[in-house]
Each structure stands twice: as C-alpha cells, then as structure tokens.
C-alpha cells in the first residue's frame, strides 16, 4: 500500500523532511509508519493525524492514507 507522510513545523525542520511517500505492505499502524521513516524516538509531545483527523499512534492505516506528525499547535 501507499501512504503519504507529512511533517510540520519544528519536527519537519529536525527531521529534514516535509513530505515522504511510503510504499510497503509491512506496516499496520501510525507507529509503524513513524518507525519506517525515521530512526528517532518519537518526542513525548508528538501529535499525529490520519486523513486530516487527530488519531492515536495505534490507529490502523490503509492504502491511500495521508498521515501527519507534528508538535503541539499554537495558533491564534
């Protein structure tokens, strides 16, 4: 399956990636996606989304999903 993975703000700068496409059938959850794209331990404050909705790291991914990882938000 194909998963689009996006990173934002300070996390994107730290990892040196904004967007990456993962093609594999060996991943099931967002945790697996993280482990597939980086060796780093996820920061304690890390947030994630699947298809534009907040989810937990044990949420399953499906072919075609857009997954995102980002630090705490602070708009306004």
């Amino acid at each position: 399956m194909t998963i689009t993975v996006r990173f934002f703000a300070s996390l994107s700068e730290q990892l040196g990636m904004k967007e990456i496409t993962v093609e594999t059938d060996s991943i099931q959850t967002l945790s697996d996606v993280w482990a597939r794209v980086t060796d780093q331990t996820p920061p304690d404050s890390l947030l994630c989304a699947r298809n534009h909705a907040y989810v937990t790291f044990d949420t399953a991914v499906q072919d075609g999903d857009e997954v995102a990882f980002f630090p705490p938000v602070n708009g306004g």
Partner: protein
Amino acid sequence: MVVKMVIEVRSQPFDPWVELARFQAGSHLVPGSYGACATFVGTMRDFNQGEQVETLFLEHYSGMTEKLLEQQAEKIKSEKKLLDFLVIHRVGQIHPNDPIVLVAAWSAHRAAAFDGCRELMEYLKSQATFWKKETLDTEHEKEHRWVDNIT
C-alpha cells in the same frame, strides 16, 4: 437559502472590522434576527516571553486546519443555537500589529454569543493545526525560534 459559516485561512493581511462589516452586510444574517455578536481579534504583539519579536511565520496544515475549525464551529453552533460564525486566520509572514485571528459569533441572545465565541477561540488555540515561528530582534543577528507554548 442555505446559510454557511465562513471559515477562512488567509495568507494576506486583513482588517477585522472591515470583514465584520462586510459579513453583516451580506446575505448571511437576517436583519432583526440577531441581538448579539461577540468577537475576538488576536493581534501580533512585538514582545513574547520577554523578548522583542520582529516577525512571525505562521505555518498550517492546509485541509486539516479548515476541517477541524468547520466541524467545531458547526458543533458549537448547534449546541448553543448560534445563528452564524465568521473565522479568519492569517498564515505566512506576519508583522507586529497585524491581526492574526478573528472569531465572531452571532446569536439571538448574548450568553450564547459570548460562550460560542470563546469556546471556538479556545479550540482554535489548543487544537487547530497552526504553528508559530518567531524571528527575534537580537543585537547581533536574527534569531529564529518555534513557539512551544500556547500564549
């Protein structure tokens, strides 16, 4: 007539009072139906956490940000029987005194308008996918830092 709230992320400067006048003059609100409008305008300060801030870069997750705000605005609108919401949020390069965010809630009565405006603003601050990077005005060189707390 289907009336739709306006939730907008904008990369150009905006004047909140002009936007409010324009919105109220439009087809959204039936004259005489609303007794109350509560608004909040967040503006860029030139200081934060004790430092002089020169500019602010606002990043957002296009698509997710708008979706979250629309869902939450719809939820609050139905719970509190609000008549309408207007939300505008700047992204990109921002300078001191620029408006960053406008949230306005219309209702027949004032408690719902006050509560609705504040609830959506608190949601926006804590959940909407925006991130701020400040350029500080230090003596020698420009210093950049991602803001890591909710102000």
